[in-house]
């Protein structure tokens, strides 16, 4: 069996899509730990649902999945690569004495082996790994896999008794991040800004351009992490969000490898930068050399007229 879990419903559905493909090629069953609507889970590929009220405590998740592993001995465990997912997967792997690969962007069966791919060395290199011991455990990058829906599918629900685990960790407070943000991963057009911007107020320029194009505003790490001019939800790159818009416009962003690692899947990348030697010009489809303070307002005006 392949067992699937994610603490994020959307990611779980994406992974079910991939899981179904692998399950078919290996002629084994696909099981999902329940989350949300059961019809949707079956339609997305599961043969079995292990129904349990899983708390969002990682101690509990580790316990539940490890117990399922002991009882059902799945060949493969695929976990959604959210932050929580990347914590529980290695813990489960360590408990079972096996390897684990995190943030996988691809996973397939070749000659009976589970082969995964992930970025390493600042995102400039792709590592191909083979998992050696069962259960083969990997976390898959959210937003990378495609869900497949077949409403005619159905399956079996297996109730798992709830054994409360005493978590060693007590959550005292949860502070939601500002909700005004749309998830940048979902935007078709992203206008991103970097240190080329001189002051916080100038973000208006970028926002007007984004508005003219119906896009979302993104940024490099320094703008979100160091200057805090934009919330972290907008931060694109290796340690931020990995995006795949149709159009990505990088303004005043030098194009360091860690930034590029986040936009590798963009269809078209456009760069605006006043330094002709900026590395971004080697990583874009179209670029213009010049001062963003001159180019962006003019460009916005032109686009407003034509859109």
């Amino acid at each position, binding site marked *: 069996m392949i067992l699937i879990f994610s603490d*994020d419903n959307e990611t779980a559905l994406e992974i079910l899509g991939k899981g179904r493909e692998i399950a078919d090629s290996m002629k084994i069953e696909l099981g999902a730990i329940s989350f949300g609507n059961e019809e949707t889970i079956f339609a997305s590929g599961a043969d079995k649902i292990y129904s349990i009220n899983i708390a969002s405590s*990682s101690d509990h998740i*580790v316990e539940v999945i490890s117990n399922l592993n002991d009882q059902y001995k799945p060949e493969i465990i695929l976990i959604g690569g959210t*932050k*929580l997912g*990347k*914590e*529980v997967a*290695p*813990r489960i*792997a*360590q408990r079972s*004495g*096996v*390897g*684990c*690969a*995190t*943030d996988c962007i691809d996973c397939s069966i070749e000659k009976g082996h589970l082969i995964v791919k992930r*970025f*390493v*060395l600042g995102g*400039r*290199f792709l*590592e*191909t*790994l*083979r*998992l*050696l*011991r069962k259960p083969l455990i990997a976390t898959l990058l959210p937003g990378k896999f495609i869900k497949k829906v077949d409403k005619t599918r159905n399956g079996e629900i297996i109730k798992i008794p709830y054994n409360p685990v005493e978590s*060693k*960790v*007590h959550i*005292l407070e*949860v*502070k939601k*991040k500002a909700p005004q943000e749309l998830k940048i991963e979902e935007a*078709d057009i992203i206008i991103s800004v970097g240190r080329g911007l001189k002051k916080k107020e100038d973000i208006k320029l970028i926002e007007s351009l984004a508005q003219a*194009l119906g896009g979302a505003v993104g940024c490099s790490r320094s703008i979100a*992490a160091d200057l805090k001019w934009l919330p972290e939800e907008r931060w694109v790159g*290796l340690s931020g969000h990995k995006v795949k818009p*149709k*159009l990505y416009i990088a303004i005043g962003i030098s194009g360091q490898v860690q930034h*590029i690692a986040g936009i590798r899947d963009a269809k078209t*990348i*456009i760069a605006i930068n006043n330094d002709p030697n900026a590395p971004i010009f*080697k*990583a*874009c*489809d*179209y*670029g*213009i*050399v010049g001062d963003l303070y001159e*180019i962006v307002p003019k*460009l916005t005006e*032109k*686009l407003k007229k*034509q859109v």
Partner: protein
Amino acid sequence: MPEIIVCLKQIFDLGQIRVDTSTKCPLTEGVARKLSDFDKNALEEALRIKEKHSGKVIAIIYGTKDAAKEALAMGADEAFIYQYTEEIDHLGIAAILAGSIQQLKYDLILCGEASIDEYSFQTGPRLAQVLGIPVLTYARKIELNDGEIIVERELENRYEVSKTKLPALVTVTKEINQPRIPTLLQILGASKKSITEMSPMKQEVGVKILSILAVEMKRKEVIVKEIDELAKVILSEK
């Protein structure tokens, strides 16, 4: 007085790694090595806790004596170093670290959330699992309080403030602090501190690396001169 252990890893300076044009493999010969970025945040946080509560900071480092000196100059009291030439993965790393930590007294273990070369987020959670102690990942704030630790963690859409009893393991983000740069005096002073070389046993592996290859970047790299032209491109691509 807390005894704090920090796990650090010496890595190649990623910016200096070149690509072999025929094989697409990374070329690391002659590339400088340094402590991984987030690991230094972990060490910095340990030093700040020591400054507040006194105690001791021990660094366990995968790397050379130079890496130990870097950590000792920053302020660690003592360093253990090890190297490993055979194939290894996080399963083995966790076992090696746990083996050496079990010989020591500790209240708190700090790791980076991820090493910046492998970026796998595995070592901290695995190590805590072996040691059977609570783990709090992605910390951007840590407070020690009477045998307990309160951590503000950053998750995708929320911050979580959590509490647990010591001993515990915490992995830190880059945002938690700004690592100090040692002064010349501290660098010189570091040479008096103790560095112990460990010789870990051979470990089993759970994954096998088949290849590491440069990612092909196929972009058009067209430079346009006029804003009008840029506007046209944008309209056709959106």
